[in-house]
């Protein structure tokens, strides 16, 4: 037992959440045989992708040692623009809007990053303010709660590329591929360094301003992308939908093993964390509990993960001492 715990503690940050996710998937398969089919997994992935994208951006800001609450506003704004500015467009006509929306997301992020660095504001309060502002803009653009987006958008989000890979799965693979590349770059290293120790990073000539700008810009980009994906999946835009993704985006990051103190963790863990949050509903349903238990379960898992992390670290330390040589 100790040895297993030790191995988990030494594993990368995404190790323990992966074990939890696999256990959940096995449990679901046992309770409802056939759940692990490709088509089922595809549905699960497309359900989770909005959260995965918004939480991926959140991860980078958290790695930088910050937090971004404004992602909720950016997501809403992206769906609001998608729903109001592109009424009967074909897919080719939609492409420029896609770029515009993503650029707006990046701009919001750059403003956040500039204010955090330039005025040395606390990220929590600053992004609380920009969350409010951007949500307000979304409400002004799209005052009604729900509005449909062009059918072409919906079709694009549910298409199958080359009759082989559905768009949500393709996007997930692209995200993981991008992360596999980005995490080894100098930029990612600097963001991590600045996140784990600002002073040390600064003394080693890592620009605190540029890492902030980059982290928040990526967060804004991913939030806008999440909004576009949400609109393409549901075929609708909503000026308030982002709010319900803010706290789950932080939860997915934490469950995925990324430390809120900055520097440690990554997007692979966050993807697993988001999938765990998404699977909870399924497990609760299969166990036969009311769907409201989903919230209780996600709250308990969230605290459990944070409580467990130090225990795993201790177990890792202990087994390292008892097992000589490279493990």
């Amino acid at each position, binding site marked *: 037992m100790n040895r297993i715990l030790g191995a988990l503690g030494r594993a990368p940050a995404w190790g323990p959440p992966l074990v939890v996710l696999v256990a959940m998937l096995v449990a679901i398969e046992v309770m409802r045989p056939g759940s692990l089919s490709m088509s089922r997994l595809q549905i699960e992935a497309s359900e989770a992708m909005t959260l995965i994208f918004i939480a991926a951006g959140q991860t980078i800001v958290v790695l930088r040692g910050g937090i971004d609450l404004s992602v909720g506003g950016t997501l809403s704004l992206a769906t609001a623009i998608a729903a109001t500015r592109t009424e009967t467009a074909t897919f080719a006509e939609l492409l420029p809007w896609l770029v515009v929306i993503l650029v707006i997301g990046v701009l919001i992020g750059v403003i956040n990053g500039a204010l955090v660095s330039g005025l*040395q504001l606390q990220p929590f*309060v600053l992004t609380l303010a920009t969350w*409010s502002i951007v949500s307000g803009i979304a409400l002004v653009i799209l005052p009604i709660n729900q509005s449909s987006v062009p059918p072409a958008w919906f079709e694009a989000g549910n298409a199958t590329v080359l009759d082989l890979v559905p768009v949500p799965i393709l996007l997930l693979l692209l995200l993981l591929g991008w992360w596999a590349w980005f995490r080894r770059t100098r930029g990612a290293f600097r963001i991590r360094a600045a996140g784990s120790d600002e002073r040390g990073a600064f003394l080693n000539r890592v620009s605190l301003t540029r890492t902030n700008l980059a982290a928040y810009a990526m967060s804004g980009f991913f939030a806008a992308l999440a909004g576009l994906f949400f609109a393409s999946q549901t075929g609708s835009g909503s000026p308030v939908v982002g709010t319900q993704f803010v706290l789950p985006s932080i939860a997915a990051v934490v469950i995925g093993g990324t430390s809120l103190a900055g520097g440690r963790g990554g997007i692979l863990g966050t993807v697993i964390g988001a999938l765990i949050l998404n699977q909870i509903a399924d497990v609760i349903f299969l166990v036969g509990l009311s769907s409201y238990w989903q919230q209780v379960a996600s709250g308990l898992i*969230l605290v459990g993960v944070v409580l467990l992390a130090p225990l795993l670290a201790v177990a890792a330390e202990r087994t390292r001492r008892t097992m000589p040589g490279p493990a």
Partner: protein
Amino acid sequence: MSRIVARLRSPGPILLSYLGLLVLFGLISVSSPGFADPNHVTTLLIVAAFTGIAALGQTVVIIGGGIDLSVPWTLNCAAVLLTALARGQDGPLIWIIPLILAGGVLIGVINGVGIAIFRVPPIVMTLSMNIVLQGVLFIATSGFPPPPTPESVVWLATGRLGPVPVILVIWAILTIAILFVERRTSFGRYLYAVGTNRMVATFSGVPVARTTIATYAISGAAAALAGILLDGYARQSYLGMGDPFLFTSIAAVAIGGASILGGTGSYLGTIAGALILTVLAGLLPILQLDSGYLSIIYGVVILVTVAMAAPATQRLLARVLARRTPASLLAE
């Protein structure tokens, strides 16, 4: 008076928020004559009281260097528990209200123990608590609204003692109590010490864990009280009634000049923050604006306040002001 000012760690931001409130109120009153009408001002104060009471605990938690994201559903649990237990009767309130306040304290203590002893980051701990409470409340009520609020609770929220609304009396008593605690008790000194530097506080013999747990307990009780009073105001409880308070409780503290890093601020500033938020909301019907604009205005106001208090801005201001002090003029 000067001693009180000296005791405030940063009188600047708090004075600034009251100045902002006065200017704001003056401008609106001039352009819209009915705004400064005593009846309207009373209404504004009553509405501000709910934010003010919910933000009381948030202030203490933030001064202590934490944050409480569980305010919305702690408030909502208290509100639903009141109507569910009392079933419209006034008699049982004698034990129900203390029970609910104790429940709020218990929620806060669990938060505090998780944060101070098990080292869970405040954001994670209180966020989880909020989610769990929301789930529990949905399970317990199955989404059905419980019976109406007892009349005496309605009186607490909307009644009057002579010309003064009862809720303002409650708010005033709470304000005096918390200002006394902040400034005159050892807990108050511990609070600022813990918020300023946990490590230094520990080595100075401050009971850090106990102080932290107490801040969250106060926040739980304050949220529960706000829930009870909100029941009286709305004459019912419903699911989701606490949701706006996540934003407003933190916004009131931030506008009131407390640093989210802890160690500074006072409930006096939070009162100004709650009043500013309420006055701004009262501006909307006058200008006939949608709620989206209120959201934008709230964001801008928070941004401007924290930007004014930011170290970078303060340095800039200090440099500008330094050129024009009487001393420097005399030197010339």
